[in-house]
């Protein structure tokens, strides 16, 4: 019994969702993560390896150690909270997609070989895209397609990498891979796409804000965290990850500050937070890896909380543009308070969950002498506070009163947000429980004077900067606009170049081709009257051409066979 892979529970629940309705279906949705979580917590020990043979391979569908178990707990928790948050949803597609999505994430973290990983990798993509499409708008449909293309490309790269890896080493086991040779680079880039590396990230900021209210909450929890887990397992200690991570932590800040769609702001801040994790993985010491994993844990919860609160606003107001919102604290006081908890957590205020995990990564950087990069990360931390800690609650709930009066969020949303907020504070105030679950042995305690003081200074001064900039009207105003970053390449530049090329080609065709082809035209005109050409132009080919081909093939073959 203790070898039962948890994803099976989720997939069985997904089948039940197909045949049940109403309250029972909601109960199934809620109980799947609960049972899965309890199963993992009580039954499953580190060190299990269960395989299933298929084709000529042993597929290891269940391989547990402390690293995968921690992510297992996290995904069950996230799926539980998201299910409560989505309690009011009646749409079967979304419910089904959510369950399969969460189940695939669990399948991926317990996968012991690259083929199993690939299967769940693709399932993650295929199930999650329905959460984007479920919004039902033209924009979400297109964004979903672009998202799917990115994800499938990532899967294809992973498969190609896995096959070459198998060819070279004769093993498909998913353990430390390290960056050597083409196979590992393919796998690395596959992970990188799902992890939203710079220039490969645009699917995230493109699709997440277009998903449904509840869909985004699901999306924020799983895809990138599966990628973080995979990187931690396969590429820990690769120095290039430190630089990638720092870049990820820094560049989204600028976009987040000018972005108007508040859920898109959160999407950028998601990349920024994943940057901290990637950096931790790149440093590769026990402390840094623990920090990365712990940060993934707390990030799922506080980022989920923020997405939930913005989702609640979107649900009630029907709009999530910073320029149109403001003053909502009057009608949504509880949501405001819960959002603030999330904001404090993501900004890493002491006593909130972000602090205890992010400081591990920061300490590890200092220990390994990445001084300049450490400064950049400090800047990134300040930036987080700006766009996620202040901007989100400020423009949504405070700022100038937009005059919108609406209701408090529905009870199930409040419960879900309350649960997440409680976890944020609990982890922040009592980090020893989370620390005891971490995969590597480390003696670390975040609450010492230097840490707390440094962090508070950072936060207060950047708060000061925000206030000052705002007073002087130098803070970028919230404007109605669509900001494109790297997507500009394929949404604008490539189509433009393509059109230009087409235009150019047409022109070329007109001038050059028509001139040079004049004699050819003449020939082709005569040719078109011959019977051979007629066969090729019609939809159904006349019998004569078939006979022609059989004669050609036979003649050629005989010539080659007999005279060669």
């Amino acid at each position, binding site marked *: 019994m203790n070898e039962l892979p948890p994803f099976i529970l989720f997939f069985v629940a997904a089948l039940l969702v197909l045949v049940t309705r109403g309250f029972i279906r909601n109960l199934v949705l809620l109980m799947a993560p609960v049972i899965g979580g309890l199963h993992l917590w009580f039954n499953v020990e580190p060190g299990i390896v269960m395989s299933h043979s298929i084709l000529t391979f042993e597929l290891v569908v269940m391989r547990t150690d402390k690293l995968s178990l921690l992510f297992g707990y996290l995904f069950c928790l996230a799926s539980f909270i998201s299910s409560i948050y989505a309690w009011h949803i009646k749409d079967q597609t979304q419910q089904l997609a959510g369950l399969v999505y969460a189940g695939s994430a669990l399948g991926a973290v317990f996968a012991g070989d690259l083929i199993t990983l690939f299967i769940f990798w693709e399932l993650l993509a295929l199930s999650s895209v329905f959460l984007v499409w479920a919004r039902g708008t033209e924009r979400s449909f297109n964004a979903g397609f672009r998202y799917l293309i990115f994800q499938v490309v990532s899967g294809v790269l992973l498969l190609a990498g896995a096959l070459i890896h198998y060819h070279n080493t004769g093993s498909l086991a998913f353990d430390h891979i390290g960056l050597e040779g083409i196979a590992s680079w393919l796998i690395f880039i596959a992970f990188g796409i799902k992890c939203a590396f710079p220039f490969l990230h645009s699917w995230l900021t493109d699709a997440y804000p277009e998903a449904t209210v509840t869909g985004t909450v699901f999306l924020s929890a799983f895809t990138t965290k599966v990628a973080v887990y995979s990187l931690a397992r396969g590429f820990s200690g690769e120095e290039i990850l430190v630089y990638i991570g720092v870049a990820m932590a820094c560049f989204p800040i600028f976009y987040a500050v000018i972005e108007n769609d508040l859920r898109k702001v959160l999407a950028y801040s998601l990349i920024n937070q994943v940057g901290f994790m990637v950096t931790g993985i790149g440093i590769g010491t026990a402390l840094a890896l623990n920090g990365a994993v712990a940060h993934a844990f707390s990030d799922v919860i506080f980022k989920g909380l923020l997405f939930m609160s913005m989702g609640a606003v979107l649900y009630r107001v029907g709009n999530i543009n910073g320029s149109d919102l403001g003053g909502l604290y009057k009608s949504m006081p509880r949501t405001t308070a819960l959002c603030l908890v999330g904001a404090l957590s993501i900004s890493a205020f002491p006593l909130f969950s972000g602090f205890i995990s992010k400081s591990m990564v920061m300490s590890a950087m200092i220990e390994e002498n990445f001084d300049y990069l450490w400064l950049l990360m400090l800047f990134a931390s300040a930036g987080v506070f700006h766009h996620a800690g202040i901007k989100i609650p400020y423009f949504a709930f405070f700022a100038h009163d937009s005059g919108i009066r609406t209701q408090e969020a529905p009870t199930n949303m409040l419960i879900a947000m309350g649960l997440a907020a409680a976890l944020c504070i609990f982890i922040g105030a009592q980090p020893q429980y989370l620390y005891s679950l971490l995969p590597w042995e480390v003696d670390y305690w975040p609450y010492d004077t230097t840490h707390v003081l440094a962090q508070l200074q950072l936060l207060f001064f950047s708060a000061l900067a925000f206030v000052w900039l705002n007073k002087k009207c130098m803070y970028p105003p919230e404007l109605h606009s669509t900001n494109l970053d790297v997507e500009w390449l394929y949404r604008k530049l490539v189509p433009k170049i393509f059109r230009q090329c087409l235009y150019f080609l047409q022109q070329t065709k007109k001038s050059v081709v028509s001139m040079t082809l004049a004699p050819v035209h003449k020939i082709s005109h005569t040719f078109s009257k011959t019977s051979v050409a007629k066969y090729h132009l019609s939809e159904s080919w006349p019998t004569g051409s078939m006979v022609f*081909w*059989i004669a050609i093939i036979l003649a050629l073959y005989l010539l*080659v*066979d007999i005279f060669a």
Partner: protein
Amino acid sequence: MMAIQGHLSLLLVVVPLIMAPIVAILPRARLAWFVALLVAVVCALLAGIQLWNIVNGGAISYELGGWAPPWGIEYRIDAVNAFVALIVAGITALTLPYALLSVEKEIPKQQIPFFYALFLLCLCGLLGITQTGDIFNVFVFLEISALASYGLISLGRHRQALTSAYQYLIMGTIGATFFLIGVGLIYSQTGTLNFADLAERLPAVFEHKTVHTGFAFIVIGVALKLALFPLHLWLPNAYTYAPTVVTIFLAATATKVAVYLMLRILFTIFPDNFVVNTPIFDLFIILGIAGILIASLYAIYQMDIKRLLAYSSVAQIGYMALGIGLASTAGVMATLLHLFNHALMKGALFMAVGAIIYRLGSCRMDNINGLGRVMPWTFGAVIIGGLSLVGIPGTAGFVSKWYLILAALEQQAWISVAVILVGSLLAVVYVGKIIEALYFKAALEANKSIKEAPLLLLLPTWTLALANIYFGLNTELTVGVATSAAQLLIGTIE
């Protein structure tokens, strides 16, 4: 019981042959259907028992009429024929329950008994090709199945069905004639028609140009039957305009039997160093590659789903040709696997399309918009079959493409690997086109009131669709049989 066991291989051919005229004179359409169904089920059971016997006991040799080979006709059954015979009989047994409603809808009532009679004759011919060990006997069965299928195709509802049947008749006859010319040339040199005997006597006359010419005629004739690109031109029309049941049947069995015959000729009859000294394998690789790419491209531009799937069949035959062209155990094994898996996926897809035709009366791309939403079960089968066609892991299509890629990698045939992958991408496009039209495009007003297809059509469709998934996950049976069959065939060459 033992007495019947002994004649099992013959019964497989004789039962449909004898029942065909009886079915033709039955007074009622449904009675004819029922008898045909019984025959098909019996054949499937016999084929299953035969494969079981061979897996457990080794090859069977059956002497027709008690005349010892090489003078008499010998039925020689090993893992290869038994496997193909089971595919043919099994698919037929699945197609017939489906046929009841579909045929009643598409064919005038008084013609239905004739339809089933022709159907059984065609089955008899196809099974005969798989069973026999005599090359002239192959020609006879080839003609039986071909003549029956010309008749079957001509029963289609559209007037073009007649033209298509006529075209197929011309082409099929040319193919059969080529085959016969080749057999005659070979016979003139060896004086025998028995497979095993030929294999023994041919090495002595390898150098003769006559043998080379005979070989070329035989191979080209069979290549036309299996619709190897560019000899496929009869196939799109035949598949498009034939009654749906016939399309399912032919797509899943006829070309498969031709592929089997090709394998026999290349690896059993012409053994050892003869075949490798001819350019035949290069021809197969070149035509296979061209077929995969060009037929897939054609498929993308088709406006009729049946026609689209027909072109896709040509492309899939390209994969099989590629596997043959690699001329290794792995390649032939991939071909045999794909033979089976392609029967599953095309069967499921054509059945689902048939369900659409049953409700809508047509399957033009511009008529089916939004139909997936009112026919969810049919649509589900299209999706599963389509995924299998593309080769998504977890479906049967993945397994055979996987082994084909492994076989190509083994010989460092990078171009072939690239072509297989590009072919899969093209399949994504044309399968995507069907799914887009069925589900994502705004539903046509007329399509909103259409009901889900009847259960009798859905059950066989879904059986095949689920088989796609089952054989995508559990590959022990298929891979095991295909491997031992491939070893049997290739054992002579390496």
